[in-house]
């Protein structure tokens, strides 16, 4: 049973709450803890404690309000003869299980009566009310501010517009309620209309920053998928700071979700090149992850794959492999696997000298998915150009790895594939030479 250590905060909290009580009684605006309540509000709104506690979940509730048994704020605190206070239902349950002790002090109870702690109950109620009303007020303030900004945006231009959008973005990112307000007041349509062929980078990047935090409905998405707006988003992706790049990438990902778009329109060469640049930026691993996710989504559409190979994706992605996190590795391998389904992709993979070594290293290394994808890629290349690739693969130590896969607990499909690949690689060698090339330990031999 965790013992609640009374924190020094308790002193501060109690005094705050006491002040509040007095303030409320006298009808004077309270100051502590932020927020303002008037007597009228307090008296008339029979605020449901349960609801308030739920909505204020994230708040730091003073320890003195917490039931030691359930660790939840108390609705109906009762005190035992030891002076310890618990939630009524919890302590009664404790008693019904046959205990006659005080849970925290472990003392035998000489008196099994429970006294309702009205004072504490009042205090809990006032405290939550105060916090709740303050939060509501803040939320209204935020909502009010958002509405104001949206109204302004209809009129102002230039630097003022940029500033307003910046503020909107900050508010939306900080307050969930702001998002709702934006959507309800036609905000999405309004700021989307600011995106056009003559939108400056400053305005565009802020708009994207706002849009990416909101839930966009199908209509908004179709609107944003128009070629002129997409071109702008791609341009901003290519020119922006890392934050902007990530926002653009995430926005495009959002737009592609659930829409029946024609991928040729979205996946322009500029976008693909921009994403490649993003994923190569090792200084910003967030960017790498987000970029690879979008590339994976884009490459799931066949028509894009050959263009992507043509802008030199394969060698750049292969170079990327060492040093990636497992999550990113899966994405990169998936992309390469998708590219290997095209003839240009296979050619590019074969021509890149580091493909085989980098990918062989990944077998049985990161995750089963990685192994599966790596195997798939190796299979595709080796089938495409067995003479060249088989020997390279063997030199890279593929045989030992494949044997490991076969002997591991991986799924049977994987083992089957490994066996096939092993056979393919060994075709040009006699058994002895092959085994020697495998550099296997004697046990495996």
């Amino acid at each position, binding site marked *: 049973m965790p013992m609640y250590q009374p924190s020094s905060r308790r002193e501060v909290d109690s005094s705050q709450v006491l002040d509040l009580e007095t303030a409320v009684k006298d009808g004077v605006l309270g100051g502590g803890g932020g927020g303002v309540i008037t007597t009228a509000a307090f008296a008339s709104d029979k605020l449901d404690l349960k609801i308030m506690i739920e909505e204020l979940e994230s708040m730091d509730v003073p320890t003195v309000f917490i039931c030691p048994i359930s660790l939840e704020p108390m609705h109906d605190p009762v005190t035992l003869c030891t002076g310890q206070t618990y939630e009524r239902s919890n302590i009664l349950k404790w008693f019904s299980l046959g205990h006659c002790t005080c849970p925290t002090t472990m003392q035998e109870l000489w008196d099994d009566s429970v006294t309702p702690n009205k004072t504490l109950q009042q205090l809990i109620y006032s405290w939550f009310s105060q916090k709740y009303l303050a939060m509501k007020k803040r939320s209204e303030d935020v909502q009010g501010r958002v509405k104001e900004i949206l109204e302004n945006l209809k009129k102002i231009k*230039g*630097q003022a517009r940029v500033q307003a959008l910046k503020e909107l973005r900050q508010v939306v990112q900080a307050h969930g309620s702001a998002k709702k307000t934006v959507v309800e007041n036609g905000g999405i349509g309004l700021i989307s209309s600011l995106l056009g*062929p*003559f939108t*400056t*980078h*400053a305005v565009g990047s802020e708009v994207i920053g706002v849009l990416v935090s909101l839930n966009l409905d199908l209509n908004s998405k179709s609107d944003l998928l128009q*070629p*002129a707006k997409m*071109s702008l988003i791609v*341009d901003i992706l290519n*020119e922006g*700071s890392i934050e902007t790049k990530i926002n653009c990438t995430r926005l495009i990902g959002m737009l592609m979700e659930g829409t029946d778009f024609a991928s040729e*329109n979205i996946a*322009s*060469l*500029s976008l693909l*090149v921009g994403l490649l*640049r993003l994923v190569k930026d090792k200084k910003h691993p967030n960017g790498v992850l987000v970029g690879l996710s979008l590339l994976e989504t884009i490459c799931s559409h066949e028509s894009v794959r050959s*263009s992507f190979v*043509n*802008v*030199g994706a394969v060698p750049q992605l292969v170079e990327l492999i060492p040093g990636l996190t497992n999550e990113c590795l899966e994405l990169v391998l998936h992309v390469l696997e998708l590219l290997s389904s095209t003839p240009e992709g296979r050619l590019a993979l074969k021509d890149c000298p580091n493909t085989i070594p980098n990918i062989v290293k990944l077998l049985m290394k990161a995750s089963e998915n990685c192994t599966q994808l790596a195997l798939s890629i190796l299979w595709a290349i080796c089938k495409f150009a067995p003479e060249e690739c088989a020997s390279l693969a063997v030199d890279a130590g593929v045989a030992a790895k494949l044997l490991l896969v076969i002997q591991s607990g991986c799924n049977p499909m994987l083992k089957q594939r490994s066996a096939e690949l092993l056979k393919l690689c060994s075709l040009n060698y006699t058994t002895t030479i092959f085994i020697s090339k495998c550099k296997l330990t004697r046990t495996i031999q």
Partner: protein
Amino acid sequence: MVEQLGFVALVKLVEVSEEHSNDFLNFDLRAFCVGRLSKNRQHTEADTEENAQTAEIERRIEQETKAEKHIQKLLLLGAGESGKSTIFKQIKLLFQTGFDEAELKSYVSVIDANIYQTIKILYDGSKEFAQNDVDSSKYVLSSENQVIGEKLSEIGSRLDYPRLDKELAEEIGNLWKDSAIQETYARGNELQVPDCTHYFMESLQRLSDANYVPTKEDVLYARVRTTGVVEIQFSPVGENKKSGEVYRLFDVGGQRNERRKWIHLFEGVTAVIFCAAINEYDQTLFEDEQKNRMMETKELFDWVLKQPCFEKTSFMLFLNKFDIFEKKVLNVPLNVCEWFKDYQPVSTGKQEIEHAYEFIKKKFEELYFQSTAPDRVDRVFKVYRTTALDQKVVKKTFKLVDETLRRRNLFEAGLL
């Protein structure tokens, strides 16, 4: 020779000779220089004042050299009649003092020339079509107009044109309205009919006025084949009226024989503004009537992209003459041009125009990435839809170009 040297040069000479302690300028010459420098001054004050002046000049020389480095060089490139000079004129109007009355008046002869040349092309064209076309009757002019036509054709072939007067204006106007000429104009893409035709032909009365002073719009439409290189220096005025970057813009001739002069301009270029007129997919070159203009632009763009000195240069592609393109594309399919032979129309009206435009843009993008080596992929490449005659469009477009170049500078300085 020394007498002709300016002050600055004299100071430099003295400086240099002092450094090399007389070993290449003889004593007399140096004395002469110093003497010249201290001309008009009391000999007693000469030394100190001289030093002050020298210092001042040195400071100015240093300042100017530094300033030169901050001037960004912009190059307008593109095939003939792609709109380079129009953009050049627009920049002049937007960011410099524009055209004064004298300059405006200097365009009167250009506009006259445009009118005579155009009507001659149309008249000669109508005769050609009347001869060769199956449906020859629609190209046959009325007899009065034939007479006018012959007269104007003769004028148009001279080296010096008469000033357009009311009488000539009326004759030209009548000829223009003849249905045969209109039919010929409809096939203008087969001839070398300039884009300003309609604009000038509809304004003949105004243009032939005795006191005619061309408007800014007239000047923008006026067509002169640029030869050689023209440059202006300007600073785009920002929102806060603070002067931003300083640009020096160079305009060149686009025809083939002019292109050999381009190479001299290629060093140290911040950005190339490549103009491509997207309406000319069904037209042939002025200098080679066998070659399709769009194909020529394609090859030219490819060539420019591969130039070694443009390794780090930003490329702004202006897909120009969108206004003419809009009207043409619904009537003349894109696949008449070989480069666009795989084009499939998807709808009609505005949607189709947008679709066609996006198709062309994509083709240029593909070409860009094909022609760009992997080590150059980081240079800036942006495509803009322009109508060079529309000042608002050019102003907004240039604002974006300016923003991009400024961000690029910050990026390269590591500040972004």
